[in-house]
């Protein structure tokens, strides 16, 4: 990477800091609006608790401090990347998130590659066969997939491919009891990944296909296509070497913008398939009122989105050298 590129990265990361800090403060305030705290939950699970015990619990977790003290303490900790302790899971939040980050990244990366890759391909095919049967078929399927609720698609896939056909497992990420190692484990995880990945891909695939189709059509109206034809390039060369590259840019921008939404979609899909990722953890922590954990997940999600957006911007400048990094 050039010195200029490096400066750009540093500047962008510096700009992201206030955004992330604001997210932390916002979420902290929001979660504290909730009635009941962790001590209530723990006491409720124990069945009964004396006021003394409750007070002791609150003191142990710092819940008896004024709100702003709790916030300052939390901010200080976040700055040193110490996200606190999840008293519910009995382990530190950063360690817990670290164990759950892998599965979510695996799912998200698979979905991102599948939906962008296939979306670009299908969109290009549709645009090249404008108003013929291939285009019509792709467009109708895209309209359908775009209107399908993600969790429902997941359930229907389970009914067909797990319950009726028995091709794929219903839930989880691997057969823990099988103690698979090496390639057998990779294969096992891949089998578990198929249905959640397809479920989440469907919606974004539809989005990117539609976007790519419109983008390719826009590009074909440009002067450089006429020039390329005039100098005798074949239609295939024009399509793949010239139009495709330019048409991909809006799709990439969209993919970058959608990362945050993708993370939200992961909550639903991970809940449906009991995929042991960050989204499933967020779902669990919300209902356990595990405040530290929830704040940690939001913090990491925010960071993840910022980093991916930056990566997309850099990729953008590689694909389109006219764009200057400033």
């Amino acid at each position, binding site marked *: 990477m050039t010195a200029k590129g490096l400066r750009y990265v540093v500047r962008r990361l510096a700009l992201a800091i206030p*955004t992330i800090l*604001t*997210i932390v403060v*916002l*979420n902290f305030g*929001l*979660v504290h*609006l*909730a*009635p009941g705290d962790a001590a209530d939950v723990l006491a409720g699970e124990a069945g009964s608790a004396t006021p003394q015990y409750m007070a002791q619990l609150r003191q142990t977790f710092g819940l008896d401090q004024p709100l702003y003290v709790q916030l300052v303490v939390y901010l200080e900790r976040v700055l040193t990347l110490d996200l606190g302790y999840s008293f519910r899971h009995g382990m530190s939040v950063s360690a817990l998130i670290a164990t759950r980050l892998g599965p979510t990244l695996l799912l998200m990366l698979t979905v991102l590659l599948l939906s962008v890759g296939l979306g670009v391909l299908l969109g290009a095919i549709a645009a090249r066969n*404008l*108003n013929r049967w291939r285009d019509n078929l792709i467009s109708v399927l895209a*309209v*359908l997939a*775009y*209107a*399908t*609720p*993600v*969790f*429902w698609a997941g*359930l*229907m896939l*389970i*009914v067909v491919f797990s*319950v009726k056909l028995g091709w794929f497992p219903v839930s989880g990420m691997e057969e823990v009891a099988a103690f698979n190692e090496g390639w057998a484990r990779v294969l096992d995880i891949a089998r578990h990944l198929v249905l959640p990945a397809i479920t989440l891909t469907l919606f974004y695939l539809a989005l990117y296909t539609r976007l790519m189709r*419109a983008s390719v*059509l*826009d590009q074909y109206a440009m002067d450089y296509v006429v020039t390329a034809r005039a100098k005798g390039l074949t239609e295939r060369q024009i399509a793949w070497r010239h139009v495709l590259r330019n048409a991909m840019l809006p799709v990439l921008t969209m993919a970058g*913008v959608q990362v*945050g*939404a993708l*993370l*939200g*979609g992961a*909550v*639903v899909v991970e*809940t*449906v398939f009991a995929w042991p990722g960050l*989204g499933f953890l*967020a*779902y669990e922590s*919300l*209902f356990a009122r595990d405040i530290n954990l*929830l704040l940690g*997940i*939001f913090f990491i*999600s*925010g960071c993840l*989105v*910022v980093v991916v*957006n930056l990566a997309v911007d850099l990729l953008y400048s590689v694909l389109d050298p006219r764009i200057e990094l400033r």
Partner: protein
Amino acid sequence: MAGLTILLAVIALALLAPLLYPDSPFALVAKPFEPPSGPHFFGTDQLGRDLTAEVVHGARTSLLIGLLATVIAVFVGATIGGLAGYYGGRIDALLMRFTEMFQTIPFFLFAIVLVTVLTPTIANVIFAISLVSWPPMARLVRGEFLAMRSREFVLACVSMGMNDARIILMHILPNTLSAIIVTGSLMVATAILIESGLSFLGLSDPNTMSWGYIIGEGRTALRTAWWVCTVPGVAILVTVMAINLVGEGLNDALNPRLRTA
């Protein structure tokens, strides 16, 4: 046209729900897990509730929440985007930074937190959905206002000494209305999808029947009673698709120059 027909049918069903099924959709009317046939058209769910009544009443909830959340989101988004685009400079930078921040937060997670924290009631669900839906509208309106700001008719208004409120409301806003209507109609579809996702996770008003809620509850019986999950899901799909088609139709009608082949 197909979209409009389907949408009108869904709206009619939602409006007629109290007449067609005057009893509460939560009422237990028959044996659990009756397959779709016989007296109960779509069968019954795990508690013996009439699935048809549930779905018809669910249409009311979905459309109501989708519509109201969108109206609020459009209002908030258009206000913020309009101010940013019209005044530019520091106000624009500040408001857009604010908008960007909202866009950085994974919006569905944010909606889940909001509803959980505020307790799931219809009003809170609407509030949460509108709070996560306004940023795209703000960006759109800002772009439109920015483009209009330097057009001659606006400059003419300014040189006539017209006040800002009048220029914004009487002259720029009507010119951006078609874009707002098209995007707004598509936002209704997204709002319905978000609502169904929330209620699927158990975050819906316990006193109101909702499509996502039926699916979430029926999920445990997926193996034996596939219809409990399938029927409301198809209802969501068809409704959202119809709204999307209507939105696209509006786009073609209102912005003929932008029509893509």
